[in-house]
Each structure stands twice: as structure tokens, then as C-alpha cells.
């Protein structure tokens, strides 16, 4: 079946893990191959590829998790490692159900597998990005990255669940550096998702153009304002805000430990009635999509907040077990090196009913955000930040002068309760989300939103 690994060995390892007892055992095999190309200084200078092969073993004994991983896949050393982990339990051998392979609930089509595309064709994309991005005299440097990843996993657990999944992802990134009179500004764009080369094959010219235009425009932009103001976020700006403002706080591990402002709020109002938040791993092509999560639970669509009412947290097997419920298919890990924890997939605020242009027209003064970057949250007190990489002043209901990047800071439950207008549109962005040192690919989206009060961390007096 799999190189260096098969069902019989999985069964044997599960038995060894539960030899001294325990509630749950799991074997996770992974083979990832990747290729990346990097262009800078007009030169294709870094090309690399590689393969990562390894196995993670997990044993759960009441509330304790024992985890081990190795890239040494010799059966004897795997059994030795499983036996070492099993010492954590003290009791009679646990039961291992017969392994039964699950069918994937969804399949993501790959039209043009990246592994079958010539390296020269990938290189060509980077040259297109470079040429297109340099069509302005202020551009000093262009960096362009291409990467594709093919990940095969096999996960089997003592309850008899076994799942196989093959995930392919592709990503294209450009960063443009423009300079004028000693001032430097940058413009960044990325595209990609779960799928094949088709996801990036044609988008290069357009993304290079928008990155270039942003970098050049920011040279003449004034500094962002400082202080509290009304903020309108465009649908095209991406979804960093929802990811930080409520996504992380709805992950069950943080909730169960009482480390989230959303703990003990099930069924209660946590947001304006205009707000519905959904996590959906089954969306085709999105960066955070998967058929199975990294514990073999089928990816699914989970309504987290419905019309402002908290409906569900995001669970993996371990956190679900503590509440005697089913996993929501949010158990993810960055590789066999890490144990799975509750993570988002594609998280978004559902579209509303207002025309985005009406939202702008209805806003007398404030900040209009058209591109968001990264963010972070303190789930304990709910404070979150997100970066605005393209924004404009709103004056008398019209889009005014561009302003430079700034961080916006708010409090999750407070901001979501105050949202007073929700647009009909929606726009996805992709990113790599970090938690407990593990990075996983995610997608997120929001419609155009108006928030009456957010602190804008610029440097200009309001």
C-alpha cells in the first residue's frame, strides 16, 4: 500500500501502544514532497525540492497525551518507540478494533498535477511576475516564490478508523519593493489553494500588477491616522479579522481550559444578529480545505455563530471526547512532528444584505480597508490585532486619500457585537496560521463590514 508502511504494521503499532492500557491510540504516517522556486534580483536563484517521511504515534490515557514521532521507519524501531510510549499507562491491555478504511466524503479535483508540470513552466511564472512587477520606475526589487506540496497521509486509530488522504497545494507569491527619495514601501500578493497548477497558471500578471500598484501608491500615501474611528472593511480585503476576532477563541482546547472569552457562552449572544460565522473544510479549491482532517475525521461545514448566537466550538477527537460528543473535523497538525489540536480550516462571515457601495456612502468619516495582512489574538481577554496593508480615508461617504499600513486593534466580542452593516459580497484570502508552534494552511473571508469603533494604530493625529 504505502511506501514503508502498511495496515498490518499500523495494527501492530496500535496494539503495542495499548499494551499497558489507555483510552485511545493512533498512528499517523505522512509522506510530503515539495518543490519551490525563488526569484530575486532578476535571477532565478533558489530552486529546491525534497521529501519528508515520518510517523507520529499517539496514546491517550485519561487526560494525558503521550506523543512521539520519528523519521526512522524501520518496523523494529517503531515498535520500540511505541513500547516506550506505552510505559505511560499502567493497566490491562486496551482493545484495538479492526481497521476499516473510510471513504472520502469529498474529492477535490486536480486538473493539472503540479508534479507533472515542467520546472521550466514554473520558472516562467516567476519571470512573468518579475517583468510585470517592474513596470514602474520606482520599483527597486521584486521577489517571487512558487511552491507546490503533495502530502499523502494515512491515519489509523484504535477505534478501527482508518483514512487515507492525498492533498496537493500550490502557492504563488510576489513582493514588490518600491523606493522614492529614500522611502521604501512594499506590495505583496499571493494566490493558490488546494489543487493543481491550474490554480496559479494564469493569475501571475494580475497579481504582479496589483502588488506593484500598491507599493508605488504607498510611497505617496500619508501615514495612517491614530486613534478610534469607524472602519469599513471591504470584502476583497480578506478575512484576517474574523480569524482573529472569534476563530481562535472558538477552538475547543482553549475553551475547555477557560482560556477563551467565548468559554461558557454556548447558546448565548456573542455577536450582532447580522453575524453568522462558518468554518468549512469542504469548499473546493480553498487553501484550508481537506477531505479528512489529520485524525481521519471527514472535513465538514460547522456553523459557529448563527445570527449572533454561539452555536458550536471547533473540536478534534480529544476535546470532543471530553464533552462526549463528535469531533467537528478540526483536528489538524503541521506534520507528523506534532500532535493534532483544534484548528480552523476555511473560516468566514456569511454574506449579508447590504450593497457594499451603500455601506461606503453611509459612512461619513473613517478608514476604508481594502487589504489585510497578518494578525494575532490574545484569546484570554479577547484583544486582537490585524494589519491593514492597503487603506484609504473615508470622507463624507466617499473613498479619499490612501494611507500607509497600520495595525488595527479591537476586542473580539465587542467588535462583533458592534458591527452594524454587512455587505452582500465576500472575498477569500489565504494564509498560514500559527498556534503552539504549528503552522497550517487556512482560508478566511468576510463580506464588507462596518465597525463603528476600532483603534487604528497609525502615527497621524486624528
Amino acid at each position, binding site marked *: 500500500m504505502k511506501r514503508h508502511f502498511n495496515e498490518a504494521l499500523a495494527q501492530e503499532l496500535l496494539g503495542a501502544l495499548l499494551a499497558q492500557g489507555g483510552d485511545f491510540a493512533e498512528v499517523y504516517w505522512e509522506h510530503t514532497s515539495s518543490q519551490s522556486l525563488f526569484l530575486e534580483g532578476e535571477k532565478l536563484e533558489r530552486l529546491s525540492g525534497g521529501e519528508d517521511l515520518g510517523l507520529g504515534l499517539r496514546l491517550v490515557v485519561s487526560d494525558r497525551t503521550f506523543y512521539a514521532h520519528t523519521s526512522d521507519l524501520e518496523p523494529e524501531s517503531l515498535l520500540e518507540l511505541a513500547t516506550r510510549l506505552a510505559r505511560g499507562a499502567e493497566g490491562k491491555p486496551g482493545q484495538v478494533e479492526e481497521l476499516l478504511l473510510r471513504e472520502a466524503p469529498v474529492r477535490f479535483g486536480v486538473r493539472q498535477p503540479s508534479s507533472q508540470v515542467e520546472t521550466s513552466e514554473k520558472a516562467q511564472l516567476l519571470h512573468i511576475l518579475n517583468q510585470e512587477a517592474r513596470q514602474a520606475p520606482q520599483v527597486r526589487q521584486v521577489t517571487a516564490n512558487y511552491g507546490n506540496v503533495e502530502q499523502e497521509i494515512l491515519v489509523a486509530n484504535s477505534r478501527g478508523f482508518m483514512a487515507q488522504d492525498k492533498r496537493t497545494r500550490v502557492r504563488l507569491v510576489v513582493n514588490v519593493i518600491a523606493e522614492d527619495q529614500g522611502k521604501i514601501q512594499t506590495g505583496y500578493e499571493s494566490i493558490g489553494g488546494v489543487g493543481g497548477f491550474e490554480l496559479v497558471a494564469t493569475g501571475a500578471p494580475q497579481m504582479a500588477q496589483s502588488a506593484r500598484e500598491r507599493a508605488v501608491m504607498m510611497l505617496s500615501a500619508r501615514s495612517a491616522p491614530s486613534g478610534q474611528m469607524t472602519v469599513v472593511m471591504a470584502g476583497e480585503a480578506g478575512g484576517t479579522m474574523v480569524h482573529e476576532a472569534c476563530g481562535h477563541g472558538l477552538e475547543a482546547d482553549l475553551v475547555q481550559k477557560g482560556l477563551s472569552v467565548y468559554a461558557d457562552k454556548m447558546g448565548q449572544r456573542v455577536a450582532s444578529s447580522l453575524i453568522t460565522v462558518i468554518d468549512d473544510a469542504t469548499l473546493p479549491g480553498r487553501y484550508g480545505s481537506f477531505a479528512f482532517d489529520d485524525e481521519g475525521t471527514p472535513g465538514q461545514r460547522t456553523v459557529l455563530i448563527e445570527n449572533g448566537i454561539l452555536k458550536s466550538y471547533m473540536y478534534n477527537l480529544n476535546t470532543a471526547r471530553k464533552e462526549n460528543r463528535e469531533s467537528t473535523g478540526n483536528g489538524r497538525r503541521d506534520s507528523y512532528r506534532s500532535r493534532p489540536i483544534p484548528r480552523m480550516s476555511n473560516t468566514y462571515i456569511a454574506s449579508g444584505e447590504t450593497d457594499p457601495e451603500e455601506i461606503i456612502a453611509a459612512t461619513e468619516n473613517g478608514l476604508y480597508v481594502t487589504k489585510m495582512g497578518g494578525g494575532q489574538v490574545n484569546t484570554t481577554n479577547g484583544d486582537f490585532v490585524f494589519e491593514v496593508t492597503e487603506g484609504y480615508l473615508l470622507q463624507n461617504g466617499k473613498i479619499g486619500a490612501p494611507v500607509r499600513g497600520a*495595525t*488595527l486593534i479591537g476586542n473580539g466580542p465587542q467588535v462583533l457585537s458592534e458591527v452594524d452593516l454587512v455587505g452582500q459580497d465576500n472575498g477569500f484570502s489565504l494564509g498560514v496560521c500559527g498556534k503552539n508552534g504549528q503552522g497550517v494552511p487556512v482560508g478566511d473571508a468576510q463580506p464588507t463590514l462596518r465597525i463603528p469603533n476600532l483603534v487604528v494604530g497609525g502615527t497621524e493625529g486624528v
Partner: protein
Amino acid sequence: MELLSLAKQVLSWAQDEELEIYLSQNETTRIEVSDLEVESSNISRSEGMGIRCLKDGRSGFAYTTVLTIGAAEGALSQARESSRFADQDLARSLPESQGETQVELSSDNDSLKLPMEEKIEFARRIERAARAKDSRVRKVRQAQYADTAYQLAIANSKGLATAHSGTFFTSSILAVAEDAGQAEMGWSYHFARELAKLDLESVGSEAAQRAVALLGAGSVQSAKVPVVLDPTVAAEFLGAFVSAFSAESVQKGKSLFAGLLGQQVASPLVTLVDDGTYPDGLSTAPVDDEGVPMQRTSVIREGRLDSFLFDTYTAHREEKNSTGNALRSSFRSTPSPGSTNLLISPGSQKPQALIGEIKQGLYVTDVMGMHTANPISGDFSVGASGLWIENGELARPVRSIAIAGNWRDLLLSITAVGDDLRWMGGIGAPTICIGEMSLSGQ
């Protein structure tokens, strides 16, 4: 050493090309405790190799986690294949041989073998100290103890062959304090190369103190005020802008310090040193990640820009010598210039004295969103929390505010440097005071 012999085997396959093999192997044990119960215990074994192939100035790279002859053959042919597509750059080359060396850094292998129960107890001690410090500390996200043994080997077809090994130990905790319906978080971290030097109790009590100090925090009015960064925050700032000192950033027009060598780029109070030989530093090693001996490099001397950080390639481009700053994030990546142990030299003022001189200002103990700072333009805007300074006293906790500015302006407007140097991994900084910064609040 086993790793070196595998490396030499691969080198023996070299054709008319230059080859470099980088091999690493490590084993880590990590214990996480919460409510004094073990939440997880992890054993991880990681190993892998990266192969660089250079021919006619074209460079290719491949890696694998499988340390067998067969996998090495596969990786080598992949690296060769990649190099065919790379654009030519004749400055690309591998470092010259320094002879064959094998070094064991200060290692504490005995402590690695301690029974699991003893290691669990270390993590519990961290949590107990946090709870003992203040009764308002009700939860911890994780009290963590970890130990690691690592081995590295690098060899190239110019005859370089070097290997080193060592150990390190870390302790950390995220503590949560609660009072009157409000919850705040505080964290702390320490590392050492020997277990005996690892802080446990003080890590717990510091995190508790940080969390408790923020209870009752509110916002403040937007203003331009003096800002004091505690050493952990100063180190985080320095870490975010390290790439500005990389020769690669300079050569590619991505550094705000390009063209400023010898000029005043910071307050005269600022001396910045990169020191790969710093005793017991996290990044201390006999050689960098392409086998060049690590050294001490003055980056900024009393405010004047002294040197950038070079690897072999960037040094070649300027006909200079590498400063021993080739770094890789792992065997999966090619080397490029970075900092080893980078520190802002401590000054002579006690942090309390430094705060005492400020009439009204902000003492920052935590920042959020530092990864959004732009190391190329130098612009930053981050969420901040800490304590409001009123007439030289820490008056009340504040959060939900942002501080913003530019890294270059920040360095130039440093008005005081504390005597309390503290290492956060490979970056060390004392308390620093910035004359004025934009603060956004209500």
C-alpha cells in the same frame, strides 16, 4: 561520527560540480503540564539532510528526512536537476576547507537520561511557582519543560568536514490571572545548555507577575509619549528587524541601512554585536551552517553602523570574508545571512531609574502582531500592553492600544539603555527607553 561518514559517502559521488552536505539529527523530550497534571509528553526524533549542488554558478538544492544511501542518491539527483534551471551567478561558491573538525559543545547528556517522573516534576515546579506568587493566578495554558540533544555535520567537496553536538534545556509558562471577571495572560521563558543553569521557579513567578500586573487594564488617550520597552519586548523588536543587517538584504535593495556604513544610524547609546562565540548562547557553535567559523562582529558601535552580516556568497559579491553568519532554519533550507547571538549591549542605568525619569509615558511589557512589522521599510504598528508611567511611577495597567513608528527613527531616538541584559533565544536586549512614539488609544 556516523553523520560525517554518510556525508563523505555522498561527496564521493561528486562529478564536475561542487557539493555540500548538511546533516542534522536531534531528539527532544517535552512535557506540558496544566493544573499540575501532565497534559502531554512528547518524544521527537528528527533527522535529515540537505544537499547543495553548484555547477557553473548555478545552484540547486534538495533535502530528505531519510538518512540512507538510496535517499541521498535521490536527493542528489534532484539537487542536480534543480541547478539546471537556476540562473547563473558566478559569486555562488562554497567555503574553503578549514580542515576536519569535531567539537562537542558544553553538553549535559546525563540530565537527558533522567527518568520521566523527574522531568514532569520540573514542569510542575514552574506551575507551582506561578500559583504561589499570587492567588489570582487560576489557570495555566501550559507549563513546559523540554530538553534536546542535537548533532550537526557539514562537509563539502572542497575538503571541509565539520561536526558538532550539544544539548539545551528550556522552561516556559503561560499563566492566566483572574479578578473581577477579567482575565489576563502573562508568560515567561528561559533556556540553558545545562540543566543546572535552567530557571524553573523564577520563570513561573515572572509569568504570574506579568499576568497580575495587567489585571484591571484599560485604554488611554492617543498621544505621543516616551515609551520604555522591557527587555523581552526590546528583543522582540530587534528580532523583527534583524534582516535589515543582512548583507543579502543590503545587496538586494531591501535594507533601510543600505549605503549607511560608517554613519550614525542609532543613538550613541546603542552598541549592537553579533557574537557566535558568546558563552552558552543559544546559537553558539564552532561554525555557521556552511562550516565557516563563527565570530564576534560589531554591527553598530556607539550608534555608528560598523558592519553587515555576511555568508560566503554575499561576501564573495563584495570581495570580503564571510562573518560566519550563514544560517538555515533547518536541513530543509539553503543558508543565507542571519544573526547568531545578537545583542544590544547593556548600559549602566537600572530599569527603575530609567522609568523614574519619565513624567508621563508607557512601559510596554507585551506586544501583539510583531510579525506584521515590515523589515524592509522599517515601519511597524503593533498592539501593546503594559503599564502607564505617571511621574516616574508605574501607575496603572493599559491594554487595547497600539504603538507605531519606524525602526530607523526608533534606534535614533533611544534616550536610555538599561543594565538588565536578557536573552530571548538568540536575541539579547536590556530595557530601552525611546524618547517619543505614537500611541493610539481612545
